[in-house]
């Protein structure tokens, strides 16, 4: 096979996995990343990675994992790719194990697994409570090996400004900015992968890292790429409030036995440890006796929100509940949760081994993202996407510890598709239409110059703060059509204000303000996709909850939202969801018996008939 030239944008788990696969097949990869790839946001993933390896004698299987994922996602995900992912999961965990990921072990030296939300099985492999960091490092090391061999070239502190399209609308490369000297470059490729992560920074303070603005996918969206299910934003039930960011307190804290509670009496301001057991309200355990504290995230979040906001039962009337680990042995806590307890200790100054943590929900993950087909290709041919930036694997709500899996699996599928796509095309990186690279680089460079000269009264960081507060207040846990409409109007007003920004820095060397101002526009465009999508979806499903329309409405909305950019704002259409493998059923976690486990098993059996059971070792 002829050597191909690929571009991968983003160096988190999805981008690195794809890079490894492309290089392993002998192809050249240019890897573009805002930050040194070893510092990518995947580093923040804490709890673990799911795979039904079934080492605990529970009878778990990839098909039950598949059912849990589809059911947990309220049936909004197309089912065939999700089944592919769940079946590949045990092999992916073994691969990471071979790469040297420091997974926790059992007394026999085997991989240990713990429980996570939305399942009744111990299916989550973990490395302390910094699993994302450990997996990211393992992939980073493998990429470094290919870098040493000359197949991978990294462009760190670079930013992809947008895809380059030819006259036929095929993606032929990208325009990228060297953020150090602010020079703009056209780069050609046989295929391009966006693995650019989530967009939670649109919400201002969230659990995301500072670069997770969604700017690259927003740019592709504005150039014609469809964006899917934008309104599905996961709000994680447990985060530590902060002034600069809301720090995640992993679901693994509950997976290891952590309990969520508030005092039974409103305004009870005694120290938490002096409140007797009978005067505590373990509201998740009471309402969901079987799943207890490990109901899916959207449900736990709504319950905590209801307790604090509607019932005014939060600790001292504040927006906070206790997440309590103090009944667990210190040695277990240190061995399995050390990383996250350290975060709480460092940022709050209280030892969570001695005193219950105070937590509240925070924006955490975007289930929606750039639309892709089952080969991870966007609606712009030649442009692929993998990881949190695309929409494919989590439906209306993501299960904990499925994100690392979807990143790695998506990266693998994308790399194979890119090689196939590039191999099947007559023209590639070597024969671009004349002047396409220079004219596109010139266009972006011109835009940058115009932003650089903006001299109005508005400050971009102030607009961003207001954007974040508005989105958090109106487009998270509970959604209301009148408020969504008002939010969209305010977004339009903010776009107007954007035009009156005065750039606080006119320098042409590492000008972060200029970069941020351009990204802010992209955030505003993407925010409209989220808001308009939410406004038009008149039902409640997974993370999208509207009290006016409290039920799931499969007849009207068992559909993928598809947003396409237009001058007048996002144009929304709906695609049918592929539910060919598991018939949709009502999603209920309040049962007390073994109904769910049996139902999952039955569903898995029905659909698994005649199909291979997947890798089980």
């Amino acid at each position: 096979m002829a050597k191909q030239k690929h571009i991968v944008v983003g160096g988190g788990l999805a981008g690195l996995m794809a890079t490894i696969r492309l290089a392993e097949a002998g192809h050249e990869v240019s890897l573009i990343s805002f930050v040194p790839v070893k510092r990518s946001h995947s580093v923040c993933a804490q709890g673990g990675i799911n795979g039904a390896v079934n080492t605990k004698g529970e009878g778990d299987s990839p098909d039950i994992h598949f059912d849990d994922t589809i059911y947990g996602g309220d049936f909004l995900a197309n089912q065939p790719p999700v089944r592919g992912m769940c079946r590949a999961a045990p092999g992916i965990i073994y691969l990471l194990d071979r790469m040297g990921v420091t997974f926790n072990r059992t007394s026999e030296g085997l991989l240990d697994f713990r429980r996570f939300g939305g399942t009744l099985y111990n299916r989550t492999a973990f490395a302390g409570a910094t699993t994302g960091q450990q997996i990211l490092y393992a992939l980073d090391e493998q990429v470094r090996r290919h870098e040493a061999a000359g197949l991978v070239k990294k462009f760190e502190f670079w930013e992809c400004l947008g895809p380059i399209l030819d006259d036929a609308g095929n993606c032929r490369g990208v325009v990228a900015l060297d953020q150090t000297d602010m020079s703009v470059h056209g780069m050609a490729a046989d295929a391009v992968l966006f693995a650019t992560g989530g967009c939670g920074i649109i919400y201002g303070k969230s659990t995301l890292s500072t670069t997770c603005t969604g700017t690259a996918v927003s740019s592709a969206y504005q150039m014609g790429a469809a964006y899917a299910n934008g309104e599905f934003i996961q709000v994680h039930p447990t985060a530590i409030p902060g002034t600069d960011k809301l720090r995640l307190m992993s679901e693994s804290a509950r997976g290891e036995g952590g309990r969520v509670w508030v005092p039974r009496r409103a305004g009870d301001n005694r120290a938490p440890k002096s409140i007797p057991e009978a005067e505590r309200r373990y509201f998740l355990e009471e309402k969901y006796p079987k799943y207890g504290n490990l109901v899916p995230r959207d449900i736990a979040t709504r319950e905590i929100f209801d307790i604090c906001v509607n019932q005014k039962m939060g600790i001292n009337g504040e927006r906070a509940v206790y997440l309590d680990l103090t009944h667990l042995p210190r040695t277990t806590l240190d061995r399995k949760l050390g990383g996250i307890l350290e975060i709480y200790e460092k940022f709050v100054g209280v030892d969570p081994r001695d005193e219950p943590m105070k937590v509240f929900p925070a924006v955490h993950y975007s289930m929606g993202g750039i639309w892709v087909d089952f080969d991870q290709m966007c609606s712009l041919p030649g442009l692929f996407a993998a990881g949190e930036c695309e929409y494919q694997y989590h439906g209306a709500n993501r299960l904990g510890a499925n994100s690392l899996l979807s990143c790695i699996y998506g990266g693998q599928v994308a790399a194979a598709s890119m090689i196939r796509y590039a191999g099947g095309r007559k023209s590639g990186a070597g024969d671009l239409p004349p002047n396409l690279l220079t004219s596109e680089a010139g266009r972006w460079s011109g835009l940058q110059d115009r932003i650089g000269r903006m001299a109005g009264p508005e400050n971009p960081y102030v607009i961003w703060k207001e954007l974040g507060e508005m989105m958090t207040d109106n487009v998270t846990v509970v959604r209301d059509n009148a408020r969504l409409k008002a939010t969209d109007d305010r977004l339009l007003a903010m776009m107007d204000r954007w035009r009156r920004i005065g750039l606080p820095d006119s320098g042409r060397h590492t000008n972060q303000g200029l970069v941020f101002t351009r990204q802010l526009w992209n955030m505003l465009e993407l925010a409209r996709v989220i808001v308009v999508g939410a406004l038009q979806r008149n039902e409640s499903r997974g993370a999208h909850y509207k009290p006016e329309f409290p039920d799931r409405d499969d007849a009207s909305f068992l559909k993928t939202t598809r947003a396409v950019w237009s001058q007048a704002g996002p144009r929304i259409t709906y695609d049918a969801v592929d539910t060919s493998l598991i018939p949709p059923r009502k999603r209920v976690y309040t049962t007390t018996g073994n109904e769910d486990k049996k139902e999952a098993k039955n569903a898995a059996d029905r659909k698994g008939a005649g199909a291979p059971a997947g890798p089980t070792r």
Partner: protein
Amino acid sequence: MPQTVRVRVRRQDRPGSDERWEEFAVPYVPSMNVIYCLMEIQRNPVTAAGVKTTPVVWEAHCLEEVCGACTMIVNGRVRQSCSALVDKLEQPITLAPMTKFPVVRDLQVNRGRMFSDLIKIKGWIPIQGTYDLGPGPRIASDQQEEVYKLSTCMTCGCCLEVCPNVNSRSSFIGPAAISQARLFNSHPTGAMNAGERLDALMEPGGISECGNAQNCLEACPKEIPLTTSIGTMGRDVTLHAIRKLLGT
């Protein structure tokens, strides 16, 4: 009058240009950290003296002390600025870039050498390929706990910053990369090419340039036993050298 926090920042517009100090007065909010101060300056880039200036440039990403990006010198001590809580700092808070790496702008430095050093020590497990070859080697739980600690190194550069032997006149690779060599040499598969990593540590700028100041141990925000790593690798390098000499 609202309470304010005094922050002094060392500014430098580009590599090689003049340095200057600027002081800011940032409104106090409970539980604020240094990152929040810098964010406030972005929203209102005006010095305490009322002079308009540019927002401060600094590198930051995760803001929860797992990525290593926001490392700088806070009140004379190298650390991550995200976990530097204002309530625990003396004022005025002084912020300066690390000194062992070239300044890009203001508080941002270029730590690229640390990543190149990981190539030098062949910092990876040489797996045969990413296709399905079954599980990896079994590893005892105790062993996992030991290597996990080493593997939390976020390449932040604190250990290089405090090491007297890392300076403009030396090519010393520094504690981080040596400890990473130990990490990969401890893995059953990584051990198969342990010799290549030891060779790298025997080169000029290698482990022999450690002066045993032990500052690194204290400075590491992840409490990685760096001096133990250097000790272990030092012994392994010596044995490796003897074996090579004897041709065994």
